[in-house]
């Protein structure tokens, strides 16, 4: 029985993962509180059949010191703004930083691409809860907006355009798993 369960546990995520292609999602399912996380936004298609010309993500409160990774063929831009709270990082107090990252380029609808950035996961983000990063794909005539965040009493299955997200875990929990 244990073997069957184990086999199912291995096989199911594989099949499910390979089907999760239609929405914009993060490759990472968990990030560790108090550490810097590498975050990979996966963009599976354009707006209808149109190519994606810009990808924008909004950095939520609690994720600080965000930095996009250089992406050949794409122009990067960041929008800075004040944080709602102040944060201590390496002995410095941060009250503002990158709140939005914009990639400009061209991704044809039939191709797939990944957009990478990193950010510090502060303890403002409670362990055990999901963090959602609203993302927008802009095309020549329209946009796909992955910006819906489920309310506490709502099933994320009910959302049409769910914002991509991941779970914050406590540092101890991460050590226990690895």
């Amino acid at each position: 029985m244990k073997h069957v369960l184990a086999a199912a546990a291995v096989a199911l995520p594989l099949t499910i993962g390979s089907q999760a292609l239609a929405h914009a999602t993060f490759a990472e399912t968990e990030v560790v509180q108090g550490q810097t996380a590498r975050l990979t936004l996966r963009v599976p298609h354009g707006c209808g059949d149109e190519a994606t010309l810009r990808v924008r993500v909004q950095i939520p409160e609690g994720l600080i010191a965000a930095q996009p990774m250089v992406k050949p063929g794409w122009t990067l831009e960041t929008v800075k703004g004040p944080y709602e709270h102040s944060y201590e990082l390496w002995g410095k107090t941060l009250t503002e930083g990158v709140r939005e990252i914009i990639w400009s380029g061209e991704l044809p609808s039939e191709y797939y691409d990944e957009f990478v950035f990193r950010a510090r996961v502060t303890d403002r983000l409670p362990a055990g809860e999901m963090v959602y990063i609203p993302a927008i794909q802009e095309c020549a005539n329209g946009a796909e907006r992955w910006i819906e965040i489920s309310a506490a009493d709502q099933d994320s299955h009910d959302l049409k355009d769910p914002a991509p997200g991941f779970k914050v875990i406590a540092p101890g929990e991460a050590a226990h798993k690895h």
Partner: protein
Amino acid sequence: MTRLLLALLLALLPLQALAHAQLRASDPAEGAVLAEAPAVARLAFNEAVAPLILRLIGPDGAASDPQGRAENATLTVALPAGLARGTQLLSWRVVSDDGHPVGGTLTFHIGAPSATPPTPAELAAGAARMAAALRLALTVALVTAVGLGLFSALVARAPMPPALLAIGRVAAAATLPLGACLIGVQGLDMLSLPVSAFLSAAPWTAGLAAPVAVTVALSVLAAGLAGVGTPAGDGRLRSGFALGAWALAALSFAASGHAAAAAPRALTVPAVALHAAALIFWMGALLPLLLALRGPQAGLLLRRFSSLAVPLVGLLVLSGATLTWAQAGSLAALAGSAYGLVLGAKLALVAGLLALAARNRLLLTPALAAGRADAAPRLARAIRAEIVLGLLVLALASSFRLTPPPRALIEPAKPLYAHIHTARAMADIRLTPGRAGPVEVSLGPQTGDFDELVPQEVEVVLTQPETGIEPIRLTALHGGDGLWHAGPVTLPVPGEWEVALRLLISDFERVTLTGTLTLPD
């Protein structure tokens, strides 16, 4: 090891929700006006899909289930030949690789959009007539089962003779299959499905969600109580069961139907229950009275029956008059309408019944008491006539469902309003006209603190999950009047519609307001 893998599995499971298919385009396009009926409709999705349910609803409200064939990401639906001119709705539900079904409704018009909405009477006339017949059969079985017990408890005050006991049991047992069939047929009627779909799941789901299911449950419970209680040896126990069954049976009539749905419901619901209570006592007593005429106690039983029947008949007339007033609104509205004709026929029959009853009470009962030899046969003939008239009255009452009451016909253009309020945003939404058929939607959004709110985009999504109509999505446009407008769109059936307003407030923020609109029938 197993635990780690299971943890991984749990962490990855939410991904399952991510791969829903999306409709990219359709031919005919949403809202297109076509010169001629198309042979096929094509729906293009973003990924490969398989059709689950396809339903075409024509301008007259008639529904058919066309066949669809999926090839890669395109679903081709073969439309029947000779589609009627007017508004056609193609409700679709497909499943993509992830096993999650998604659906929507495509509206297109042949020639021009339909001017008049399909009325409930036009929808699936076959199923509607079957439902009326089943409702009559259920009513007769219920009245027989409960009425016999009531007569035994209140009038005879003695155990029932074996012949009546057997009739009561058969009637009580019959309520179960009749009620079950009624739920399915009601579902067919609601979904405008052909009778051949009786054995599929859809009509049963719809029927069980409808008020008729409550009526059936109460009826079966009432008949069950009567069936169990009547043979009881102890008189007080028998009375308890009979009165309980009487109350439940009366309530079963109030749980569904046009009359109990008319405003003001605080008045109409008790009126329907009292009307039903009186008719159950009266009609249920006729058969045992007929048999009792041959016995030695005829005079005593008739006197007891009369002393209860006179106030109850008063109640019957009073509650009936109240309901007629609530349903019709005015005499002028009744004249000439199909509802008015049915009501007129019913009132004429009731007048006949009342005349017979008065004759029995004032002439024949004293004659029987005086020992006149011809009194018993004349009473028997009169009671048989009452039974026949009573059945006809019940048949007419059951066929009210086939005619919309005048209250539905005289206020067609009154818009329907709803207010949806959340902390983040709120909106006033208006549906014009406020009834099933083509409607226009307009809405005025504000912030939760009554401040100005100008969204970048507004989408209106209308759904009626229990009848299997897939979400109808509309893009609203900002009008010069400061409101947002969408439509016209055809809402094919009355009842509760869930409305979701998706307001794009800023690039990264969308607020969804959800509420319910009840379209009157």
